[in-house]
């Protein structure tokens, strides 16, 4: 399997070098795309081969990094995330060939191509890192290459600010991770290999273990976009080029999930129930707030970004439930929770990747991200519309697509909550069930809005009226992901045992490959419940074929006449009479007004003669997200105040600065002597 690793690294390398050195822009794009396809394809095969064979791949190169060397080890957990990276990497690379053509002459194609390959390379190696130094080095490289991709359209308003937020939040998280690894490495021995840390974690004091867990939750949570650390996500994901948005939402934020599992489950080997309860609570809040803010969003890509926050929440609900069950020794249920979380991870990568690529095609065709200026695109871009519809149905957890399967697994894990002997913990489960159900219901409402307003009815702007279908490479990219959504929905019977294999042995979880049956059914442990999305999908398909057939046999009237939309006697329908995204979301905005606290501004300009004649009406409404209001605005004000104070000692005088240096140096020398 080592040769696959070499092919993977070589593929990305050729892609990056080719993009940087080739002359014509067509060649630059082709090199970046083909390199990334080879690399991501190899990553996918490598991951799958590892999952199927169960072998662990270990590589140690001591010369590259000082002290500990560059250590790679691919186990089941890493292989699963490698499969996710490959699954999304290939279509994204293909899509970027067509999508970045529009960037020619405006932005640097070389930088985009090289950075895309660099990001994929660091992601693919990240899941294999086997010591803290390798992990942190790759983590930082990944964050920085993602940053360069985010600020591609640097001359657009808001891009640099979004990049700034992203880089700040990711570094706050990075600091937490460094502290976490320092605690885990056990102080003086400085053994940074994961194997040593695993041994070390057993001897750590409970308080230190708690600290490691909290730092991991904070550090990885900031990458994953967990509420309240999510603020950068709805800013940074929309402004990036769409294929990068897909990669960031689909894979990059999942590295937070990977890290959390690696540290809490693998390195620490699980912990007390309150760890799981905390993750469960954070996940529930993240899921609900994510979808609630998505509902109010009319920027198509920002809407999708808020849904990424929501889905990270759902993944964390599964993981949190798993951690709680594990702490009570309910291993089968624990595995079910983790499997639900992991399954949702790969599902989210496929449907959110698909939706971002679809949104990118719309942006490519209309030049706008504002849903209120779209409409009628289903007729002008039928393929994109179909793919987006599949993605929308999948993310709304509608059977027989993949979102349903993973939410079903998470639901089943939560329903098992009554097995917990401690009532105080167990009552959290019904609440989580209710909130998860509300989340998925609201997600369905949100995607009716997203698809209905953008793709259906009459075009709302000149650009939407003259939209064009996406080029072939972009369509193929979307088609691959749409097929993945369908396949993952119909074949849970083969995916679930694989995930069971991934988890076997981590944190003392048993090998449950045999617990889940393979006969086209997915069964919760102990025969609690079973479903077969495969048969249901087949049944739906048969019925869809049967109904028109029966109708034909019964001699139903098959005539169809096209006519004007009925307008209560009015003739001539204009787009201004359509329901807008804002009006669609209005009922829910009223229901959740306590949370949104919308501010309204209405100014009516009357005719001077009579107030019954209106010259113009101006209406504007704004929503400030909760955490911006209560957390970040005060925090930013505080930092600014401190900065102003600090500025006093900076006079610009070189002599003064030299004196500062001298004083600090002397103080440090004294301190060194002292200790």
């Amino acid at each position, binding site marked *: 399997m080592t040769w696959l690793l070499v092919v993977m690294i070589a593929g990305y390398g050729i892609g990056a070098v080719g993009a940087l050195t080739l002359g014509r822009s067509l060649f630059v794009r082709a090199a970046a795309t083909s390199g990334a396809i080879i690399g991501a394809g190899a990553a996918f095969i490598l991951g799958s081969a590892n999952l199927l064979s169960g072998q662990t791949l270990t590589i140690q190169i001591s010369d590259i990094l000082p002290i500990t060397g560059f250590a790679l080890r691919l186990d089941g957990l890493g292989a699963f995330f490698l499969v996710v990276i490959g699954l999304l990497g290939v279509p994204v690379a293909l899509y970027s060939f067509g999508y970045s053509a529009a960037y020619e002459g405006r932005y640097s194609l070389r930088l985009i191509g090289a950075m895309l390959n660099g990001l994929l390379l660091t992601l693919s190696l990240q899941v294999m890192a086997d010591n803290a130094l390798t992990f942190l080095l790759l983590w930082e490289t990944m964050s920085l290459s993602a940053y360069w991709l985010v600020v591609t359209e640097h001359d657009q308003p808001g891009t640099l600010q979004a990049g700034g937020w992203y880089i700040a939040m990711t570094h706050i998280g990075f600091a937490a991770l460094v502290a976490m690894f320092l605690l885990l490495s056990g102080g003086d021995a400085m053994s940074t290999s994961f194997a040593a840390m695993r041994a070390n974690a057993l001897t750590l004091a409970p308080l230190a273990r708690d600290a490691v867990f909290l730092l991991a939750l904070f550090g990885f949570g900031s990458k994953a976009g967990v509420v309240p650390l999510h603020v950068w996500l709805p800013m940074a994901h929309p402004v990036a080029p769409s294929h990068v948005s897909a990669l960031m939402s689909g894979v990059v934020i999942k590295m937070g999930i990977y890290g959390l599992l690696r540290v809490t489950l693998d390195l620490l080997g699980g912990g007390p129930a309150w760890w799981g309860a905390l993750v469960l609570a954070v996940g529930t809040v993240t899921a609900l707030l994510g979808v609630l803010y998505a509902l109010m969003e009319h920027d198509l890509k920002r809407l999708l970004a808020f849904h990424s926050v929501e889905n990270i929440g759902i993944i964390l609900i599964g993981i949190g439930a798993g951690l709680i069950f594990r702490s009570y020794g309910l291993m089968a249920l624990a595995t079910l929770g983790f499997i639900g979380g992991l399954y949702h991870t790969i599902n989210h990568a496929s449907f959110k990747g698909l939706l971002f690529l679809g949104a990118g095609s719309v942006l490519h065709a209309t030049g706008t991200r504002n849903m209120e200026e779209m409409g009628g695109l289903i*007729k002008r871009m039928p393929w994109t519309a179909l793919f987006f519809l599949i993605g929308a149905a999948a993310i709304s957890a509608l059977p027989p697509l993949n979102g349903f399967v993973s939410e079903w697994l998470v639901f089943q894990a939560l329903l098992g909550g009554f097995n917990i002997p401690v009532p105080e913990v167990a009552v959290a489960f019904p609440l989580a069930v209710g909130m998860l159900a509300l989340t998925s219901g609201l997600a369905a409402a949100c995607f009716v809005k997203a698809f209905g307003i953008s793709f259906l009815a009459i075009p709302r702007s000149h650009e939407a009226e003259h939209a064009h279908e996406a080029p072939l490479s972009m369509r193929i990219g979307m088609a691959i992901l749409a097929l993945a959504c369908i396949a993952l929905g119909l074949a849970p019977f083969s995916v679930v045992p694989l995930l069971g294999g991934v988890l076997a042995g981590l944190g003392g979880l048993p090998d449950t490959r045999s617990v889940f049956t393979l006969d086209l059914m997915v069964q919760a442990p102990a025969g609690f419940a079973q479903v077969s999305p495969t048969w249901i999908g087949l049944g739906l398909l048969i019925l869809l074929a049967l109904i028109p057939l029966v109708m034909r046999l*019964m001699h139903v009237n098959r005539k169809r006449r096209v006519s004007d939309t009925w307008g209560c006697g009015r003739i001539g329908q204009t*787009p201004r009479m359509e329901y807008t995204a804002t009006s669609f979301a209005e009922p829910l905005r009223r229901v959740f007004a306590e949370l949104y606290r919308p501010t309204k501004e209405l100014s009516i300009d009357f005719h001077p003669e009579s107030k019954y004649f209106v010259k113009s009406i101006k209406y504007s409404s704004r929503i400030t997200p909760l955490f911006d209001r209560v957390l970040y605005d005060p925090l930013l004000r505080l930092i600014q105040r401190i900065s102003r104070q600090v500025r006093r000692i900076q006079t610009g005088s070189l002599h003064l600065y030299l004196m500062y240096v001298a004083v600090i140096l002397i103080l440090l020398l004294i301190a060194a002597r002292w200790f």
Partner: protein
Amino acid sequence: MIVTGYVLEIAQVALALLLAPGLAGFVRWLKARFQNRRGAPPWQPYFELRKLFGKEVVMSNNASWLFRVAPYIIFASTVTVTLLVPMIVAPLALDGMGDLLMVVYLLLLGTFFLALAGLDPGTAFGGMGASREMTVAAIAEPTIALAIFSLALSAGSTNLGRIVTQELANPAVTVSPGHLLALAALFIVTLAETGRLPVDNPATHLELTMIHEAMILEYSGRYLALIEWASWLKLTIFFTLLANLFVPWGIATTFDPAALTLAVLALIVKLAVLGGIVAVVETRVAKLRLFRVPELLGASFVLALLAVTSSFLLK
């Protein structure tokens, strides 16, 4: 034996399809009687179906292929649900194909496409209906999930056949507080999901408060027939769930012809009783303002939460 099971599945689907228009017509007729009107006969919906299937379709020129496909998806997803809900026999041959969560999400699939089809012709009416339908569906979702939780707690499964057989084996469960509270919660949700008063008014076409009727305003001919039939079927499914999950007696547990005949009769009686209750409710209460509906559904959520907590503590 196995073949009989599958034959029964098909027979059950046929029975549901056959009963659904009659049930809707019965509720309408009874309501008219309560209101001192003569009303159309209970079998009127059958005539409506025949009329609609015989008429040509008039489609809006703004509508796309989605508008043409949606009725089939709505109908197919609702019929698939009737394969999973035990109406006359439990457990069904296909009981393991889907549980209560599958039932809920299959119905959501129909709602999803109905709302999209409402938006497709580009009228304000359609958009209004779609927006309200999705709002109500989303807010009803947690109540349904918690009611499922509460049922699953006592039966040890979310599969419908198992819940019914467990209750038949252990009748005391059906009068436990958790069960009764869950029944109350699901009854409110049934009114909301099937578009009955006080949430939606099935009898009106031109009122700013309408939800379901607003979405299907542009439909005609065979498409309208399919959608109407699917919504009557949905009413039948929800009534059957209320009847057989909370009062399971009468349902057959074997394929014995006498038991099956009894089960069909019991089902018809149960549906008629529930239809009568809904007719009384619809006569007694006025339509709620749209923005008061969340309060009603909030109350049902609290009932469901109480149901779970009490099943939990009494377990």
